[in-house]
Structures are given as structure tokens and as C-alpha cells.
């Protein structure tokens, strides 16, 4: 159950996407999010969706893993789509009591569905193809101008590295503690919501205590390995923009222009 969680997973590989600079990937991801949300008609929507799908395929990561990440949020997506479907404006095409389905409702539902799915897919591409260290390294470099405002960019990046590193470890531990409590007769999977939340407290408390112990030991181990903040620190994989980075940025810029053009030339979908 807990092993289904795929946050922060990374699948080493050698695809074009893997080899891109993490900074480029981060910037492109952010612009993707913006462009996914400015799509105004079905042409631009399907255009960007196809683009996302090709990036997914190019990443060389098993499609199964993408399905897994979609599975985790499938209910949220369906729920929002259905809500959108029922709250459209204009003439109803079908009506059942107070529930009515309109053209704009259908449009909204499809748009929300495709947008969220694209969003999940493209963010999965980022985490699946970028090692957490590279990811946080990229963020650290992108955010480094914020140092002017006395924001501790290196510390934030290091915290994220460690958080990503410990997600699987803590999930493992949660599962172990849950089993231990079950073995003592605790019931985790029955009862109403309140009872279940209550049943989770005996899991959370030991988890919290052990996390503090881990944090203390990790800090000692890091100090023993000469960690002393970001000053004077070098990186094994230093970041350099390569030809592939420029080319892929150019391709994405063209695609984004395409989205804008389709939005302008063709009529907007009724919303």
C-alpha cells in the first residue's frame, strides 16, 4: 500500500531527458504549467497534451511508472471533473433533478481532466529522470539570486535532499510500526474515519521519536564527513549547459508559441 507512493522516485537512465540540465528542466516545467493552463480551445489543449506524451515517451521510463503516479490521484481527478461537469453554465443538454449537464460543463470537465493529467505526467517526468541531488542542486542554483535577501538557499536545498532521501526509509518504518501495532491487536483498517485517525496515533508517535533519533545521528554523521554548510563546497556533477539544453529549450519555446498561436487563431471553447 505505502509502496505505491512514487514521490521523489528516480529511475537512472540515459535518455535525452535524463541528460538535460536540471535547471533547464525546472524552468521548462514551470513554463509548461503556465502553458497548460492558458490553453483555451481543444486544438491547443490536444497540442500540448501530445507534446507531454512525447516527452513521457522520450524519457525512456516504463509507462507503468507513470500510470502508478496517475493512479495515486485518480480519484481527485475524477472528482474535480465530475464537479466541473455538473456546474456548467448555459442551456442544459441533459437534466436529472437539479443536476444538469451543459456544453460548457462538458468542456470544463475535459479541460480539467487533461490539464491535471498533463501536470502530473510532466512533473513525474522531472522527478523520474532527475536524481534528487541534481534536482535540489538545480533549485539551489536557480534560487541563488535570493541570497541577496538573506534567504538560506543552500540550507533549503540540503533539507530537500535529505527529505527526499528519507521518504522511502520513513515509509518502510511506518509500515513496520503499523505491523507491530497490528500484531498487538490494533485495528488500522476498520471503523469510521475518527476511529482510524485515532488508531494512527500509536503509529505516529514512535515514528516521530525515531525520526528525531535519525536526525540526530545523521547530523553527527554529516559533521564527521566534514559538512559545514554551502561555503567552499564543490559538486561532483557540476552543472553546465550543453547543446542539448539549448536545443530542447528552443523546441519548447516553439511549442509554447504554437499553443499561443492556436489559442489566438482558433475560437475558444465555450466555458
Amino acid at each position, binding site marked *: 500500500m505505502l509502496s505505491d507512493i512514487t514521490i521523489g522516485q528516480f529511475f537512472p537512465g540515459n535518455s535525452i531527458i535524463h541528460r538535460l540540465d536540471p535547471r533547464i528542466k525546472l524552468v521548462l516545467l514551470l513554463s509548461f504549467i503556465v502553458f497548460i493552463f492558458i490553453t483555451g480551445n481543444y486544438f491547443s489543449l490536444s497540442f500540448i497534451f501530445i507534446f507531454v506524451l512525447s516527452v513521457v515517451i522520450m524519457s525512456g521510463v516504463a509507462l507503468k511508472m507513470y500510470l502508478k503516479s496517475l493512479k495515486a490521484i485518480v480519484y481527485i481527478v475524477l472528482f474535480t471533473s465530475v464537479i466541473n461537469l455538473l456546474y456548467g453554465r448555459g442551456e442544459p443538454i441533459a437534466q436529472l433533478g437539479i443536476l444538469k449537464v451543459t456544453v460548457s460543463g462538458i468542456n470544463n470537465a475535459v479541460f480539467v481532466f487533461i490539464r491535471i493529467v498533463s501536470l502530473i505526467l510532466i512533473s513525474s517526468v522531472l522527478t523520474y529522470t532527475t536524481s534528487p541531488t541534481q534536482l535540489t542542486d538545480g533549485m539551489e542554483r536557480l534560487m541563488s539570486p535570493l541570497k541577496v535577501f538573506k534567504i538560506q538557499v543552500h540550507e533549503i536545498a540540503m533539507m530537500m535532499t535529505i527529505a527526499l532521501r528519507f521518504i*522511502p526509509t520513513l515509509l518502510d518504518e511506518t509500515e513496520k510500526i503499523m505491523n507491530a501495532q497490528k500484531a498487538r491487536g490494533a485495528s488500522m483498517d476498520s471503523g469510521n474515519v475518527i476511529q482510524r485517525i485515532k488508531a494512527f496515533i500509536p503509529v505516529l508517535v514512535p515514528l516521530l521519536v525515531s525520526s528525531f533519533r535519525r536526525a540526530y*545521528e*545523521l547530523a553527527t*554523521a554529516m559533521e564527521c564527513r*566534514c559538512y559545514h554548510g554551502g561555503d567552499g563546497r564543490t*559538486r561532483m556533477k557540476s552543472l553546465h549547459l550543453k547543446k542539448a539544453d539549448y536545443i530542447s529549450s528552443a523546441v519548447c519555446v516553439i511549442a509554447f508559441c504554437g499553443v499561443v498561436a492556436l489559442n489566438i487563431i482558433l475560437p475558444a471553447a465555450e466555458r
Partner: protein
Amino acid sequence: MDNFIEVKNVTFGYKDYDNNNILNETCVINNISFNVRKGEFLALLGHNGSGKSTLAKMFNGMITPDKGEILIEGIRSDDEDRKYEIRSKVGLVFQNPDNQIVASIVEEDVAFGPENLGVPPKEIRERVDEALKAVDMYEYRNFAPHKLSGGQKQRTAIAGIIAMQPDCIVLDEPTAMLDPKGRAEVMSTIKKLNKEKNITVILITHYMDEAAAADRVIVIDNGDLLIDDTPKKVFSHVKLLKEHGLDVPQSAEIAYMLKGGKENDELPINRHRCVEYIVELLNNN
């Protein structure tokens, strides 16, 4: 041989304030002196709470003595200006490999130490590859740590220390959380590093068979140095060790019992010698 670490009359106690804000000072290390020679494989024994881990953290200056001094190649362990030099000379490996690994990819974790030392990227790459090969983890360089077995994780942690190119590694019960297979892997890695790379090894352990493989054994008891000798001699003091809550290797135990509990300064400490010992005993009777 040269002395690598000199421990001179060291005394230490943790300072704790109790509920009434009264300072409680316990004496954890009590006026201990000994030397660690370069290239030596030293085992450190003692029952739970006898101060072994405390001593381990003193070797690289994480804890500084209250009285006395510790010299690492002549540098005082409390020399703030040379703190990182000391820590890169003496690497510490702890019991739980999960809590020592910082990065989510094996090779990136191994690079953590050299990165902190400001080594240039190209050299880090070389050091990382070399360290991973030294602990036989090179094929796993792209793995996520949580996909590794306990023994593999612990070897990754050792590689992370090796990459800093230390002269000495201190391992605090590195095999305590491992299964027999993982334990054997880690032990053979440690021995290999000691023999082939001539790295000084200080191994803290509760497994007497591991201590028997060392060049020298030091037994600590409640902060006092009890015995400091070769494993053969140390494990012949069966009665003394038992009195202080410690075991001896199984071979020595068997031989000791066959002798009817009489002390003998030449008990066998490995299986091979044990067999010879028993044969000899049978022939004599």
C-alpha cells in the same frame, strides 16, 4: 611503527542537568592512555555503556577530552582551525547505515565527503569510483540506498568515508544491524582496506570473532582500560573477560572448557587453531 593516534591521560564525562538544574557529571572515560600505530587493525571491546562510542567520537574531535589530550599525527584533536583536516584523516562509520547516507543515489552519497572538502569535480569523480571499487559496490553506483541490503548500505557508508582518503577509519559496531552475510561482507571489506590500502582500522564490536581477526585488542571497562594486548593473549583471560560481562570467541571458549576452566595464555581463537588444539589435547591424554 609510528604512532598515528596518541591518547594521553584522557578523562571525559557528559554534562547533564537534571530536573532541579543541578549539574550531573558522570565519568565516562577515566584517565585512559594508549597509542594507535599506523596501519594497525585495532579492536575495541567493552560491555554496553562502557564508553566505546564516546571514545570513537574523540578520535576525530567530535568530542574533546575534559582532561588530557588526543593527538592525531601530532595535531591536537581540539584544534578548531584544523577540525576538517582531522575529520578527513579519521573517518567515522556508525552502526545504522540508514542514518549515515545523505543522498538518494549511492555515488552521490559517496561524493558527499569530498564535496564538503572542496575537492575539484574531476577528482571527486575519480575518488568516488575508486572508493566504490574498493568496497565492491561499483556496480551499484546508480542505486537508491533503500534498494540495497544492509551489508551493501554499510559498505556504501564505508565508501563515503574512503572517498575522503582518510588514513584511519573508526567503525562503531558497523555489523550490529546486519545479517550474517552482510556481516561477512563488511568484515572482509574492512580487512581488505587495512591490508591493501594500509588504512589504520579501529573496530568497535560486540562480536568476539571479529575482534579475533585484529592485530591488537583493547578492552574498556566503565571508562578504564582493562587489557591492551594481542587477541590471542586477550582471549586467554577467559575468566577476567567473563567477570566484566564479555565473551570470548567460541574456539577459545571450547578450549577453555576442555581444559577444565584453567587459565592458559595460548588459547586458540579461530576454528582452524581450535581443531589443532583439540587434536593435540586428545593425543596427550
